[in-house]
C-alpha cells in the first residue's frame, strides 16, 4: 500500500490556505441532506459536532457516558497552548510550530504541525467568546503561564480545570445545536463496529448500554473522536471508561494504525499505594514551574524528607539539565525519575516515588501565592494522600497519560478508509513521538472546530455516494459480527474477572513496553500477551446478560481489544530500532543515557495494517521530510 498524506504543496505558511481554497464546497442548501456520524463528545467530537451542526449538516453524535459533558477531556487540568504572544516574550506561530516538531522528536508531519500552530490563535478567540472563564490579569487581559518545557508563556488556563471549561464550552455549543435540531445526541451508546460499503465508511453498529439493543446507523461519513488508548496499561491517568474499541474495530475493517508504540508517560502523578488501585491521579505539571524535584543522595535513605539536609539531597534534574532544570520535557523527566528509583533512591513506602518540593517557592513567594497558583491541586493531593504539601514535599511518580499513536490520517484527517475521519487523541497526527504539555486540548479543538468542517465538506462534494440501506449485506454482516462477539463473551463463564485479566495485561505492557523497552523484553511481552489472551477467551467470566445495563460486559469487550492493541504496540516498539521521544529503547542511547534517534532508518510513520486473526500485521511506511526544522539531537542541558 502506498500512503498519500495529501500534504499541500507550496510554502508551509500558505499550505492550509491553499488547501482550503482547493477544496470543493457543499452547496449550503444541500448540507442538511448530508448525514454525518460523530463518535465521541470530548473536545474533538463535541467541537466537530457543534460546528458541523452550525453549518447545517444533519449530525448524529454518540458517547458512552450518560451525558456528552462527561467525556474524558473534562479532566485536563493544566492548560491549552496558543501562539498569541500576548506576553510579548517572543512567541509566534513559527515558534510554536518549531517547539512542537522538536518536542515530538522529529517524528511528526511538519505541515500538520504548522496548521495546528496557526489554528491555536482562533481556538482561544472562540473559547473566550463562548464564555470560557480563562484566568485574567487585574486589567482584564488574558493571562498565561509557561508549561511543560516551553520557554515562553503561551499556556491559557482556567484554574486547574482548563479541560473542564473548554469542554463545557464545546458541550454548550453542541447542546445549542441539539436545541436547533441539527444535532441528535445519543448518549450511553457504544460504537462496536464500523460499516464499510464499497470501500467507504458508511455507518456504525452501536449498542445501547441501557437496553442492550444493537442498532445500525448509516451515514455519508463517519467521524471518530473517541480518545486515546492509555488504558491498555490498566493503571493510567485516563478515565476508567476510556477505550480503544472504536478505533480498533475500524482498524480491523481496514484503517491503518500509526505509531502504536508512541505512548506518553507523565512525570507527575500520585504514586501507586496498593493493589486495589483503580487509576492514577495526575498532578498538573504546572507544579514543576515552582516545585523542585529531588531524591536522597544515598540509597535506601528512609528518613522523612525534612530530616534530610540540603547536602544530602540530589536535585537530579537541575544537576543534569542546568538550562531547563525541572522543566525538561515529560519523557526526559519521567525517564530520570525511573532511573533514580531503579538505583534504589526512590522515596515512599514502595520506593517508587520522588519528591516535588515547594519549600523554596513558599519561602520566596509566600504561601498565599502558592495557594493562589495551585490551591486546588494541593487540596486534591491532600485529599488523596492525607499529607499536607505546604509542609511536606509531594511524592510523585510517572504514569501513562497520553497516546501519540492512533489511526493514521492524511492532512485532511481522513483515514485509509475513504469517508472515515479521525480527530483528537484517536488519530496519530501532530505530536510525533512525544507530546508537549497543553497541546492535546489545542489539537482536539483545532481538529474539531477548524479542520474537519472543511475537509468533510470536501469529501462529500467530491464523492458520489449512493443510498445504502440497513439490509445491505455488509451492514448486516457487521451487525451479526457484533452480536456473535457479545454472545461469545457471555457464554465463556470461566473463573476469572475481566479486571483481573486487564490488570495482568497492563502490568506486562507497563513492564516491557512502558518507560523503557528492549528487544528481549518486547519479545517475551508478545508471547505473554498471546498466552494471556488465549486464557481470556477460555476463562473470563461475564455475569448477567446482554439485554440491560451490564458494565462487566462493556469492560469485557474493551479488554478484548486492548489485548490485540497491546500486542501491536509491542510489535511496533520492537520494529523501531531507535529511541525517540516517549519510545526509549535501551539499546539505543547516547553515552550519557539520552534517547538516540536513527534518522537514516527510522524517519517515518509506521502505519500497520490488519491482516486477519492471528496473522502478523503489515507495515507501511510514510516517510517524513523536514524542510523547515532541521532534525537535531534534542538537548535540554
Amino acid at each position, binding site marked *: 500500500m502506498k500512503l498519500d498524506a495529501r500534504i499541500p504543496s507550496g510554502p508551509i505558511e500558505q499550505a492550509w490556505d491553499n488547501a482550503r481554497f482547493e477544496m470543493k464546497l457543499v452547496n449550503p442548501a444541500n448540507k442538511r441532506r448530508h448525514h454525518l456520524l460523530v463518535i465521541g463528545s470530548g473536545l474533538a467530537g463535541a467541537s466537530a459536532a457543534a460546528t458541523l451542526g452550525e453549518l447545517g449538516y444533519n449530525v448524529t453524535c454518540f458517547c458512552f457516558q450518560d451525558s456528552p459533558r462527561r467525556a474524558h477531556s473534562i479532566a485536563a487540568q493544566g492548560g491549552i497552548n496558543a501562539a498569541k504572544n500576548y506576553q510579548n516574550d517572543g512567541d509566534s506561530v513559527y515558534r510554536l510550530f518549531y517547539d512542537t516538531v522538536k518536542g515530538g522528536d522529529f517524528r511528526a508531519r511538519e505541515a500538520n504541525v504548522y496548521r495546528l500552530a496557526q489554528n491555536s490563535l482562533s481556538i482561544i478567540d472562540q473559547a473566550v*467568546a463562548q464564555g470560557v472563564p480563562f484566568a485574567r490579569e487585574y486589567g482584564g487581559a488574558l493571562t498565561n503561564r509557561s508549561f511543560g518545557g516551553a520557554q515562553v508563556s503561551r499556556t491559557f488556563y482556567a484554574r486547574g480545570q482548563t479541560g473542564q471549561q473548554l469542554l463545557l464550552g464545546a458541550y454548550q455549543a453542541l447542546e445549542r445545536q441539539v436545541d436547533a435540531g441539527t444535532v441528535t445526541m445519543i448518549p450511553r451508546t457504544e460504537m462496536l463496529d464500523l460499516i464499510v460499503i464499497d470501500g467507504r465508511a458508511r455507518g456504525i453498529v452501536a449498542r445501547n448500554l441501557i437496553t442492550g439493543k444493537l442498532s445500525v446507523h448509516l451515514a455519508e461519513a463517519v467521524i471518530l473522536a473517541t480518545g486515546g488508548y492509555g488504558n491498555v496499561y490498566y493503571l493510567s491517568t485516563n478515565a476508567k471508561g476510556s477505550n480503544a474499541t472504536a478505533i480498533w474495530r475500524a482498524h480491523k475493517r481496514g484503517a491503518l494504525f500509526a505509531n502504536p508504540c508512541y505512548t506518553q508517560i507523565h512525570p507527575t502523578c500520585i504514586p501507586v499505594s496498593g493493589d486495589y488501585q483503580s487509576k492514577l491521579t495526575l498532578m498538573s505539571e504546572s507544579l514543576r514551574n515552582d516545585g523542585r524535584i529531588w531524591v536522597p543522595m544515598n540509597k535506601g535513605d528512609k528518613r522523612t524528607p525534612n530530616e534530610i539536609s540540603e547536602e544530602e539531597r540530589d536535585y537530579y534534574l537541575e544537576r543534569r539539565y542546568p538550562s531547563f532544570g525541572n522543566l525538561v520535557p515529560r519523557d526526559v523527566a519521567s525517564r530520570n525519575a525511573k532511573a533514580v528509583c531503579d538505583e534504589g533512591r526512590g522515596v515512599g513506602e514502595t520506593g517508587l516515588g520522588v519528591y516535588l518540593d515547594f519549600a523554596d517557592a513558599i519561602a520566596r513567594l509566600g504561601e498565599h501565592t502558592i495557594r493562589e497558583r495551585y490551591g486546588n491541586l494541593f487540596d486534591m493531593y491532600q485529599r488523596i494522600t492525607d499529607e499536607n504539601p505546604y509542609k511536606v514535599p509531594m511524592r510523585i511518580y510517572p504514569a501513562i497519560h497520553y497516546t501519540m499513536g492512533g489511526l493514521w490520517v492524511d492532512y485532511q484527517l481522513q483515514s485509509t478508509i475513504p469517508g472515515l475521519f479521525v480527530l483528537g487523541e484517536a488519530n496519530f497526527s501532530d505530536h510525533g513521538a512525544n507530546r508537549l504539555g497543553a497541546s492535546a486540548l489545542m489539537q482536539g479543538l483545532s481538529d474539531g472546530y477548524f479542520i474537519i468542517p472543511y475537509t468533510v465538506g470536501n469529501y462529500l462534494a467530491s464523492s458520489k455516494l449512493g443510498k445504502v440501506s440497513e439490509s445491505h449485506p455488509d451492514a448486516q454482516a457487521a451487525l451479526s459480527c457484533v452480536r456473535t462477539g457479545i454472545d461469545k463473551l457471555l457464554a465463556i463463564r470461566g473463573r476469572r474477572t475481566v479486571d483481573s485479566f486487564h490488570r495482568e495485561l497492563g502490568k506486562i505492557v507497563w513492564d516491557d513496553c512502558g518507560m523503557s523497552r528492549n528487544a528481549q523484553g518486547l519479545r517475551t511481552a508478545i508471547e505473554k500477551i498471546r498466552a494471556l489472551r488465549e486464557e481470556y477467551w477460555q476463562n473470563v467470566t461475564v*455475569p448477567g446478560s446482554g439485554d440491560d445495563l451490564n458494565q462487566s460486559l462493556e469492560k469485557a469487550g474493551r479488554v478484548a481489544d486492548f489485548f490485540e492493541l497491546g500486542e501491536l504496540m509491542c510489535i511496533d516498539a520492537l520494529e523501531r530500532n531507535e529511541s525517540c521521544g516517549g519510545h526509549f529503547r535501551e539499546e539505543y542511547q547516547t553515552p550519557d543515557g539520552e534517547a538516540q534517534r536513527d534518522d537514516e532508518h527510522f524517519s517515518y510513520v509506521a502505519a500497520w495494517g490488519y491482516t486477519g486473526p492471528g496473522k502478523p500485521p503489515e507495515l507501511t511506511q510514510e516517510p517524513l521530510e523536514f524542510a523547515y526544522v532541521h532534525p537535531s539531537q534534542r538537548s535540554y542541558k
Partner: protein
Amino acid sequence: MKLTLKIWRQKGPEAPGKFVSYPVDNVNPEMSMLECLDVLNESLIERGEEPVAFEHDCREGICGSCGFMISGIAHGPQAATTVCQLTMRHFKDGDELVLEPWRSRPFPFVKDLVVDRRAFDRIVQAGGYISVSTGNAPDGNAIPVGKEEADRAMDAAACIGCGACVAACPNGSAALFTGAKIAHLGILPQGQPERDRRAVRMVAQMNAEGFGSCTNIGECTGVCPKEIPLEVIARMNRDYLRGIWKERHQLVTTIAPVTDWDLVTK
C-alpha cells in the same frame, strides 16, 4: 478494617428493589469509596453474582458521573468531595454504610445506584450557552474581563453536573445546578445579550422537568462537591424576574422530557 455495605439492589425500573448487606473485609483506609465497591464487585463476580452497578469515569472528582447517598448524605460525609475521591479513612472499623441512588422524580431510576440525569442536558439545551458559531469570535483580548468577575464566573462554572444538589434537596429542586450556569454566563460580558432569554428559558425547562421549587433550605450547597454558593440561586431569581418582564412578548418554549432509553432504535 471491616465494613458492612448495605446497598440498594434493583435490576431495573420495573423490578422490585431491596437493600442487601455485604460485609467487606480488608478495607484499606487509602482506598476510595469506589475502589471499595470494586473490591466488593470482584468478589461478587467471582461468586457468579451480578456486581453492583454504579456510575463513574474520571475518578478525579471532575466528570460528575459518580454519586450516590452514603447513609443519607449525598456523596458522603466529607465536604466538597465526590464519592470517587472519598477515601475510606473517613470511616471506622465496623461501620455500616447505607448506599442508595439519588431519589428524585426527574432522575428516573436505571439500575442499582444508577439514575438518568438527562434532564440536566435539556436544561442546558434550553439556553445554557452563548450563541456564537465557530469563526465568529473577535480576538480574545478584545473583550476585557476584570479578574474578580472572571473569578466569580469560574466559581459558578465549576459545577460538574453530578445531581447531588437535587438529591439532597427536600423539594428536589435543581436551582443550584441551573443557577450555577445562569450565573457563570450572566456574570461575563459575553453573556449579556442573551441574559434574559437564557434565564427565562432555563427556568421554564427546569420546571417542565418536574424539579421542585427552591425554598432556600441550603442543603444543596452543603453537599455540593464544588461548593457552588447559594448566591447563584439569588442571581437566577433576579435574572428570571427581569427576563420575564423584558421578554414578556416572547413565547417561551420548553423541550419535552424524554425518559425512555430506546434512543438508538427509534
